């Protein structure tokens, strides 16, 4: 297939100056991502263009930007999958912009920190391993795939009108830990979750789930959070535990056994 030319229309932002659109013609080929296109512009046309990226395979979440009006990952978007021959690129909405396509993600991480995104130990023996059944893992697995790219935050209409709203990413993280059978931090998190700028402010536009590049479905997590908070209020919330104790289960035959120790223990 011969190369086609696509126009990359980039919203340039320099601190202290007004934003301006700049166009770059880019020769594209099958398999080329938006990130590849940006890289080509930087190498061949304009070295001053700024964006953030790292892994180039949809894992790190660094290259989040608004592509033709829709938040997504530049590394995850094939240029030829976009029917338009003009691709407009903007920094993620609902974030302050550092420069060009580089958003300042600090507000998102501050909110993320505020919901205590870590396992808060409950009552268990100190030396006992925290066991978890496959069923308990499934309860939160989907929500643990979040890569903190900020696409959901950029798509959230509530966050656009209320900058203090926690937003889909931190709320999803809160649900992920609340549903974890090894966690006992619901009571600590519910203070910030029950705030005016939190889940009750979400009116389920579900744009966050639509744009998530990892299929996390933050809108679903928020609905679960709403249910958990109401059930907790009336004393009907079920704790995700208890953690299964005792036998770790029967080893599967198809998994090879660990090799013997070559150095014998005294």
């Amino acid at each position: 297939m011969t190369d086609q030319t696509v126009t990359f229309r980039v919203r340039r932002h320099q601190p202290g100056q007004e934003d301006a659109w700049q166009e770059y013609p880019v020769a594209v080929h099958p398999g080329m991502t938006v990130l590849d296109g940006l890289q080509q512009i930087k190498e061949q046309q304009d070295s001053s263009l700024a964006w953030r990226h790292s892994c180039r395979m949809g894992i790190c979440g660094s290259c989040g930007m608004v592509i033709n009006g829709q938040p997504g990952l530049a590394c995850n978007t094939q240029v030829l999958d976009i029917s338009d021959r003009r691709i407009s690129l903007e920094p993620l909405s609902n974030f302050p912009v550092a420069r060009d396509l580089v958003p300042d993600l600090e507000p998102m991480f501050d909110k993320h920190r505020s919901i205590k995104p870590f396992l808060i130990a409950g009552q268990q023996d100190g030396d006992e391993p925290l066991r978890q059944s496959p069923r308990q893992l499934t309860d939160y697995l989907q929500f643990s795939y979040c890569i903190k790219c900020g696409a959901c935050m950029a798509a959230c209409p509530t966050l656009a009108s209320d900058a203090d709203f926690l937003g889909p990413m931190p709320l999803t993280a809160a649900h992920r830990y609340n549903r974890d059978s090894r966690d006992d931090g619901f009571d600590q998190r519910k203070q910030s979750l029950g705030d005016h700028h939190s889940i009750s402010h979400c009116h389920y536009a579900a744009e966050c789930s639509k744009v998530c590049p990892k299929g996390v479905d933050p809108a679903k997590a928020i609905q679960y959070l709403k249910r958990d908070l109401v059930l907790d209020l009336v004393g009907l919330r079920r704790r995700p535990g208890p953690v299964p104790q005792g036998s770790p289960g029967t080893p599967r035959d198809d998994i090879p056994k660990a090799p013997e120790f070559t150095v014998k223990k005294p």
Partner: protein
Amino acid sequence: MRETKYWALNLLAGLLILVLLAQHMAVMQLDGWLEKWLADWIPPLSWPGLVERGTNLIQMVSYVLLLGLGLFHGFYGLNKILAEFIQGDQKRRIIRLGCTVMGILLFVVGTTVTVGFYLVNG
């Protein structure tokens, strides 16, 4: 946590409104159908029908409840919608206060009429 309580109450109010509104609609709209089943049926829009409902304790309580729940549900929703368009906590507090005052005022007026009618004619 206070917001969670309001929100849960809003949900509960929605459910109760469904029940009370269904009862109100049945009384007001199904008169032709109910007339066939109830021997002492009085048309709901006639004065005797209105007096009968207004002097019935259960009807009076259900109307006060419907009014209170409806106002809470409506003004809570309105407050949330307005909060979407207004930036700043100070302005949002004013909107919330305005909605609360309006809700209480309307509730007082509605309750005065309903309870007053019951006390005077009952």
